[in-house]
């Protein structure tokens, strides 16, 4: 019988554990008595999902489908359309919150900061169907986090009011028929 198994057979470790546990009789409980007591939720807390707008009031979402593909429970469905102003938007954008696990992968995947999670966690409904949120339920009137970002100002495609070469860090379009080298 080696040293370890001798020690084990004395049950020292087990007794010590029990002593440590019993000491907790006199410590305060960490439980927050929700709903009487509201816990503090940080601004980056992962609660209800919203779609934000940029500072110009335009929808940030370009319906790129990255949130949908990142979603581990596949609860985001959308369809892209190209509007007359050249912007791409979601024709419909649906989140089935009865499936959502609020993991925030969609927010991480979003290249335009459009989809964001908010600290609102009170999402209970008596009817599951009410947990299906369409675009009009998701879209808010503000930029949420990252207030200054606007995707189309960074992007190379032309939209109404921003032609080719007018985005940030872009030179004016090259005149292909010009003779300058």
């Amino acid at each position, binding site marked *: 019988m080696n040293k370890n198994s001798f020690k084990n*057979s004395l049950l020292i470790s*087990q007794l010590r*554990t*029990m002593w*440590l*546990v*019993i000491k*907790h*009789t006199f*410590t*305060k*409980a*960490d*439980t927050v*008595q929700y709903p009487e007591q509201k816990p503090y939720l940080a601004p980056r807390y992962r609660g209800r999902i919203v779609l934000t707008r940029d500072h110009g009031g335009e929808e940030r979402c370009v319906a790129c489908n990255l949130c949908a593909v990142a979603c581990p429970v596949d609860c985001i469905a959308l369809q892209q359309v190209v509007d007359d102003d050249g912007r791409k938007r979601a024709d419909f954008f649906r989140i089935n919150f009865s499936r959502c696990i609020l993991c925030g992968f969609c927010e991480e995947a979003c290249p335009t900061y459009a989809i964001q999670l908010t600290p609102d966690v009170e999402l209970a409904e008596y009817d599951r169907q009410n947990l299906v949120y369409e675009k009009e339920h998701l879209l808010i009137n503000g930029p949420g986090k990252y207030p200054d970002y606007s995707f189309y100002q960074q992007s190379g495609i032309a939209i109404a009011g921003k032609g080719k070469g007018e985005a940030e860090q872009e030179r004016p379009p090259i005149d292909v028929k010009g003779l300058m080298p």
Partner: protein
Amino acid sequence: MPEMLWKLLEITIIIALLIPMAAMLVWVERRLIGIWQDRHGPNRVGPFGVLQSFADLLKILGKEDWVPPFSDRLVFTLAPIIGAICVLMSFAVVPFSPDIGVSNLNIGLLFFLAMASLAVYSVVLAGWASNSKYALLGGMRAAAQTVSYEVFMGLSVMGVVLLTGTFNLREIVLAQTDGWLIQSQFVGFFIFLIAGIAESHRLPFDLPEAETELTAGFHTEYSGLKFALFFLGEYLGVTLISAMSVVLFFGGWLMPEPLASWLPPLLWFVIKIMCFVMFFILLRTSLPRPRFDQLLKFGWMVMLPLALLNLLVTALLRLTGVL
């Protein structure tokens, strides 16, 4: 004839008290674990959440009495009943106080051991009848565990029998008027306690229902009332083992003076039992579950020799007249 009626009344009262007590025990356990884990535990239903168990009971009664189509219907139904009956029968021999106790059986201790062994049928049959791999594994484990541990459970209490010279539990209690047997039978008590935990499938020896490995072990397929019977059996089993420990090693209802006169003997008995129950709950909160091979090895390699040694030493000391 009236004596018979009185007895029946006594039995009814005991059962009527024991079953709600088992339910309360669930609440006590959850609250205690909560406290030890820095939580509150159930505290919403009734004052301090005492009615939680009854809410749970109501819910469980409202559930569908589901018998899986692939199971052996008769045995499946019989198994939880056997379990509950065996434990309840054991209480027949427990001397609660000088006046209370269903039966003053001469072989009370043997009856208890027999019933404890019978209870394993409940688990094995449940595992078999469920026709499910988890349940079957749970049942097999229960059988192996019970067979291993009841051997030295019996041996451990032989020391008590040696010293008191009787199998009658009431007489064993009375034999401790001068001093509790824990003094001389400390090792025996230790072995009995461990075997008792194993017999009642309590943590850390709950391998037959190890939820991390076997979903819920032998009662995987059970729900509703039948599941409640298993649950009842388990908590009554805890109470029974506590009661037996008190009776065998801690003097039953007896207390040294002046404590004895402060409270009636029955209450002292209950208090002692509650201490043991709390100890069982503490074990559950603090100790991890061993592997199954470790469990059996511990039983056969450590506990059995220890029990034999204890018996031998006790017998020697008895012969030499030291005890």
